[in-house]
């Protein structure tokens, strides 16, 4: 059993008691809600005549269903409009802080909470969304929950949970050029498998994570769930504190000093005991691309799609399913795979630094003929800042569309969808069958820089080669 880790310390501090089932009743410090998984929870509250116990500790926004082109109300999609009205009404009825479209602070829930300083080290954070693990980047214990649990948090600010084990994932060394946080997490999932993390919280440690900025750390923690781990975190350090300082909800004045002192105290102890430790070397990580239908089916961009014989027995059935669905041939290089659509955005890679990096490669280039490429900023603040820096112009000139913030084609609940068996190069997090809005649509996950490379070449390309050309006279 783990001892002295940040996970243990934060868990113990938030434990209200032990329930008859043996589960812990855990206090939730910050609860985030959005329009898709909350309406039924409020309906359950009403049915039971319950109130929201700590309305100040829930924050709402809209992201999943919002259109990224025409946001005029009522929405063209009447079902989406109905969901908008439900969350507007619920926020009003229960006195919940709500960042609506046009507030200047709306966006993907996992983008807006960190950018406003709502997400802080040492908190427990829950949201009816599996990518809540993102917030672990700050040294918070953050995890996704279902709608009945959203109801539980609204009614009691607590959840019934069993404690997780803690696996330390250590990555050391400097990332080679063209290799990003996204590649690191895709590599980890490839190596540990999509269910390797079930029952675990992942603690990301080592010099590679230490030298990442907060947005890169969020990309890593975000995809913990793709590796089966409900939650992933990084111990807070000076990078964390510098990011938080001055943000809307960050402590101010004297409280700031106390906060930093406390945040330092919840870091995993030097002699902390983990249930498991795995180590990787940053130098061995390549720009990574998925070729299949699970996020674990990833390879370096210079590798070939693995043949069934080269895979462990347990992975062969799903590989066969993937060859068939993806219409890709095992044994052929992933590089050069023709694509139709390029998507930059999502809670994994829709933050300012992602857009800056992508713009660096898009500057002065052109999206290849016949490719639809678009950029969806993660939040209104990201969009605003990007426009201030002129990133929108760089993208537009290169042939990308520049959209309004939201989840967009990460899950395609809005009008942004693949058609038929189109294949997308996507900076999002899931390549499941049908994930991007068409039952036969195909998704290749990669970093935003790699998406730009794909857009420019019209096929999966190595961003390192694009970079070489950029610096040539």
């Amino acid at each position, binding site marked *: 059993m783990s001892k002295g880790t940040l996970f243990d310390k934060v868990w113990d501090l*938030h434990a*209200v*008691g032990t329930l*008859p*089932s*043996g*589960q812990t*009743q855990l206090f939730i*410090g910050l609860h985030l809600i959005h329009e898709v*998984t909350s*309406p*039924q929870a409020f*309906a359950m509250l009403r049915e*039971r005549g319950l109130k929201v116990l*700590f309305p*100040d500790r829930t924050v709402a926004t809209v992201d*999943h*269903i919002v259109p990224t082109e025409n946001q005029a109300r009522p929405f063209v999609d009447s*079902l989406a409009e*109905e*969901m908008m009205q*439900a969350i507007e009404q619920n926020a009003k009825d229960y006195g919940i802080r709500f960042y609506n479209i046009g507030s200047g602070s709306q966006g993907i829930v996992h983008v807006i909470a960190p950018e406003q300083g709502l997400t*802080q080290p*040492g*908190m427990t954070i829950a949201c*009816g*969304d*599996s990518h809540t693990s993102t917030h672990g980047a700050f040294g918070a214990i953050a995890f996704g*929950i*279902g*709608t*009945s*649990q959203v109801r*539980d948090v609204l*009614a*009691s*600010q*607590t959840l*019934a949970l069993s404690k997780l084990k803690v696996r330390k994932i250590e990555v050391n060394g400097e990332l080679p050029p063209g290799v990003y946080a996204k590649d690191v997490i895709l590599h980890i999932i490839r190596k540990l498998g*999509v*269910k390797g993390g*079930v029952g675990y919280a992942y603690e990301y440690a080592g010099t590679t994570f230490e030298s990442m900025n907060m947005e890169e750390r969020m990309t890593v923690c975000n995809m913990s*769930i793709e590796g*089966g781990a409900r939650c992933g975190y990084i111990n807070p350090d000076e990078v964390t504190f510098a990011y938080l300082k001055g943000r809307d*909800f960050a*402590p101010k004045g004297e409280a700031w000093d106390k*906060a930093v002192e*406390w945040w330092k105290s919840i870091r995993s102890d030097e002699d902390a005991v983990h249930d498991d430790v795995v180590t990787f070397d940053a130098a061995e990580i390549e720009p990574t691309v998925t070729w299949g239908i*699970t996020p674990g089916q990833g390879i370096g961009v210079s590798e070939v799609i693995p043949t069934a014989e080269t895979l462990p027995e347990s992975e062969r*059935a*799903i590989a066969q*399913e993937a060859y068939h669905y993806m219409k890709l041939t095992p044994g052929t290089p992933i590089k050069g795979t023709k694509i139709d659509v390029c998507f930059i955005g999502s809670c994994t890679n829709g933050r300012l630094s992602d857009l800056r990096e992508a713009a660096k490669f898009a500057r002065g280039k052109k999206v290849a003929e016949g490719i639809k490429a678009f950029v969806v900023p993660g939040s209104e603040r990201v969009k605003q800042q990007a426009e201030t820096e002129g990133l929108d112009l760089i993208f537009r000139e290169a042939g990308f569309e520049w959209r309004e913030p939201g989840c967009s084609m990460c*899950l*395609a*609940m809005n009008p942004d969808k693949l058609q038929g068996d189109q294949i997308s190069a996507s900076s999002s997090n*899931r390549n*499941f*069958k049908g*994930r991007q809005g068409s*039952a036969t649509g195909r998704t290749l996950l990669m970093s935003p820089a790699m998406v730009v490379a794909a857009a420019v070449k019209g096929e999966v390309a190595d961003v390192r080669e694009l970079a070489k050309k950029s610096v040539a006279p």
Partner: protein
Amino acid sequence: MNQVQQISGRGVPVIGNDIDTDRIIPARFLRCVTFEGLGKQAFADDRVQASGQHPFDLPQYQGANILVVNGNFGCGSSREHAPQALAKWGIQAIVGESFAEIFFGNCISIGVPCVTATPETVQQLQKLLQEDPQVSMTVDLEAMEVHCGDFPASVSMDEGLRQMLVTGTWDNCGQLINYVEQIKATASKLPYLHWDPATASY
């Protein structure tokens, strides 16, 4: 809440590892403010692709109430719409090799037990259900056994959660709100609630 002790009826096998919640209920069906009507959409895209051959469409499995699945079932999105869709289709219990965590918790929250069995057992159950879809099947949470015709096997589940289902105390919400004093006491110890002016009074 009702006691969930024994689920008897017929089984339906859905074969494959890593079946995610996007496949169980595609995102476009999440455009709703209630869970009503989701049953018809369970596995919607898989069913179209299987052109009528998906177990959820085959006539011989209509009316089945026990789902038999393989590894990492329910991975991906946290959407409770997934277990809700299965439950509304008629599923009352799930036997599998392993389950994704959030999906598992969501099932318990709505009183649908997920029990695990060895891969050999699960594959045997799936074979039996393919050979004879009408065979009677039982998941017994008291004996922690599954029976499929004459084939018995033991299954497992966290003991505390099993107790909750068997004794009809699986409604977390009802229990959690019993401890408001303790909840407030815990809140008062949290440093970060004190430096947030909105919550300093907790």
